[in-house]
C-alpha cells in the first residue's frame, strides 16, 4: 500500500491518519476536508465556544507542528464529489482526481434542516463558523428558540441561559431524550431546564422557521430573535451515490468497518455491525470517531489480521452545572435502575438492561471508578441478574 486517501478531516479522519503513521506506514496520506480549517474539535462548539470561555484558537485538534510531523497531503476547503471504486480514485470539487489503494471515508454528518431556515436569524450548530455566527447573536435579553431538546439543543439552551438569553426549547416528544436515556432521566433533564428558566415546551411540532420566529404545526407563531434548529443529522453520503457502495442510514460497513475491499468507514457517517452488541449501529459521538478511525487504519494496514470493531460506546454531555457520562448502548433498553445516588439530587448512577444483559450505564456527578466498574460490566456483557438483580420491565 502506497497511497491512502482519507476523506473527512475531522476527528475520525485525523485519528486514521495519525494511526497509520504511528503503525509505521510511510506512504502518501491525502487528507481531504471540505472546511478550510485544520482538523478541529466539535464538542466545545456547543459548550466553551458558544459560551465565550474559549476563542477559536482553542479548538484545533493538534498543534501545527504535530500536524506537520504527520507529513500529510492536506487538501482543505475542498469537498470530495465522487468515488470511482473500480478505478480507485476520489474526485474533488476543485477538479482533482486522487488515486488510492486504501480509502477511509469519514465525511461525517450535516444538520437536518427545517423549511424556511435559510435566513440569517436561523442557525444550525455543526461547524466552527456556525458556532461563531450563533454566539455573536447571543446577547442578554435576546430571545432564542431552540428546536429540538436532544443533547445538542439542550447544551445550547443551557449555555444561552448562562449568557442571559431568553430561551424557549421546543421538543416534539413528551419527555426529552427518553428513547436515549429513559423516561426518568429524561424528566430529570426537563426539570433542570425549568430550574434554569428555560421555557421547555414538549409535545410541540415545528412546521417551519418563519418571519419573527417559528411556526408550529397548529399554526401558532413562537416569537424569536434567533432560532437554532437542532433536530438531528443526515450522514454525508451524497458524494457516494452511484459509487456501488451500500448507502442506507449512512455508509453501510461490516464488522471490520469495511464498506468494500480496501475501503473503510469511520465516525458519524459509518454504520457498522458491532459484534459486542450483535447489532448494527451508527454513532455520532466524539470518542467513537477516534476509536473507529484508529481501528480502520489498523485493518487497512493488516488485511490478513483484521480485527472486528467492537467498542463500548461512550458519550458525555454538559448541561448547566452537571455532566452526563454514559457507556454502552442505552437506546432500546427495557429497564433502567438507579443503583447509586438519587435522580432528584442530580448525583446518580443508572444502569440499563436489554434482554438479560447490562447494556449501558449513565452517571451524573459520580466518582470515575464507579463508572468504570459498570463500564466493565457492559464490556463483558454481564448478566443483569448477577450485576443488578431481578428483571423488572420499564413501567412495572
Amino acid at each position, binding site marked *: 500500500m502506497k497511497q491512502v486517501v482519507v476523506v473527512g478531516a475531522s476527528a475520525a479522519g485525523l485519528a486514521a491518519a495519525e494511526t497509520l503513521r504511528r503503525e509505521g506506514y510511510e506512504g502518501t496520506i491525502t487528507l481531504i476536508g471540505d472546511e478550510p480549517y485544520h482538523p478541529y474539535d466539535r464538542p466545545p462548539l456547543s459548550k466553551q465556544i458558544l459560551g465565550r470561555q474559549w476563542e477559536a484558537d482553542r479548538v484545533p485538534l493538534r498543534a501545527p507542528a504535530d500536524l506537520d510531523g504527520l507529513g500529510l497531503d492536506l487538501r482543505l476547503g475542498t469537498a470530495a464529489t465522487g468515488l470511482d471504486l473500480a478505478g480507485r480514485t476520489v474526485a474533488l470539487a476543485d477538479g482533482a482526481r486522487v488515486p488510492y489503494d486504501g480509502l477511509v471515508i469519514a465525511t461525517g454528518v450535516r444538520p437536518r434542516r427545517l423549511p424556511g431556515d435559510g435566513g440569517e436569524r436561523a442557525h444550525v450548530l455543526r461547524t466552527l463558523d456556525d458556532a461563531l455566527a450563533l454566539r455573536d447573536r447571543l446577547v442578554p435579553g435576546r430571545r432564542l428558540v431552540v428546536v429540538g431538546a436532544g443533547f445538542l439543543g439542550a447544551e445550547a439552551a443551557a449555555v444561552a441561559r448562562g449568557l442571559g438569553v431568553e430561551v424557549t426549547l421546543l421538543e416534539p416528544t413528551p419527555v426529552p431524550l427518553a428513547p436515549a436515556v429513559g423516561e426518568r432521566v429524561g424528566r430529570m433533564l426537563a426539570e433542570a431546564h425549568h430550574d434554569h428558566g428555560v421555557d421547555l415546551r414538549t409535545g410541540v411540532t415545528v412546521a417551519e422557521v418563519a418571519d419573527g420566529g417559528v411556526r408550529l404545526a397548529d399554526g401558532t407563531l413562537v416569537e424569536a430573535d434567533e432560532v437554532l434548529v437542532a433536530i438531528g443529522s443526515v450522514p454525508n453520503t451524497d458524494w457516494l451515490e452511484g459509487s456501488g457502495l451500500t448507502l442506507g442510514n449512512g455508509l453501510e460497513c461490516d464488522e471490520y468497518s469495511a464498506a468494500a475491499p480496501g475501503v473503510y468507514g469511520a465516525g458519524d457517517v459509518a454504520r457498522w455491525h458491532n459484534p459486542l452488541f450483535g447489532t448494527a449501529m451508527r454513532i455520532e459521538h466524539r470518542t467513537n470517531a477516534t*476509536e473507529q478511525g484508529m481501528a480502520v487504519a489498523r485493518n487497512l494496514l493488516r488485511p490478513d489480521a483484521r480485527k472486528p470493531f467492537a467498542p463500548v460506546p461512550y458519550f458525555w454531555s454538559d448541561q448547566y452545572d452537571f455532566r452526563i457520562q454514559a457507556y454502552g448502548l442505552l437506546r432500546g433498553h427495557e429497564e433502567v435502575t438507579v443503583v447509586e445516588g438519587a435522580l432528584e439530587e442530580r448525583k446518580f448512577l443508572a444502569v440499563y438492561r436489554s434482554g438479560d444483559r447490562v447494556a449501558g450505564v449513565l452517571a451524573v456527578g459520580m466518582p470515575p471508578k464507579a463508572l468504570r466498574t459498570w463500564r466493565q460490566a457492559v464490556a463483558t456483557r454481564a448478566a443483569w441478574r448477577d450485576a443488578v438483580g431481578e428483571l423488572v420491565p420499564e413501567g412495572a
Partner: protein
Amino acid sequence: MRVEVDVPKCVGSGQCVMIAPDVFDQREEDGIVVLLNDRPPAELHADVEESAVVCPAAAIRVVEK
C-alpha cells in the same frame, strides 16, 4: 518522552486511565485528569501515544518523543 496535559480541556472521559493507568489518573470529585508521571518509561510510550490519539478532548500532548 515528556507528556503534557491541558487540564482545562479535559472532559473526564477516563479513556487515558483505561489505556495507561500508570501515567494517568482521574480526580475523584470530577474525573478530571491527573498526570502521575510526565516522563514515563519506554515500555509505556506506546500506551501514552495511544492515549493522546484517543483523548476525546485532545488534552494530552507528547511534547518530546
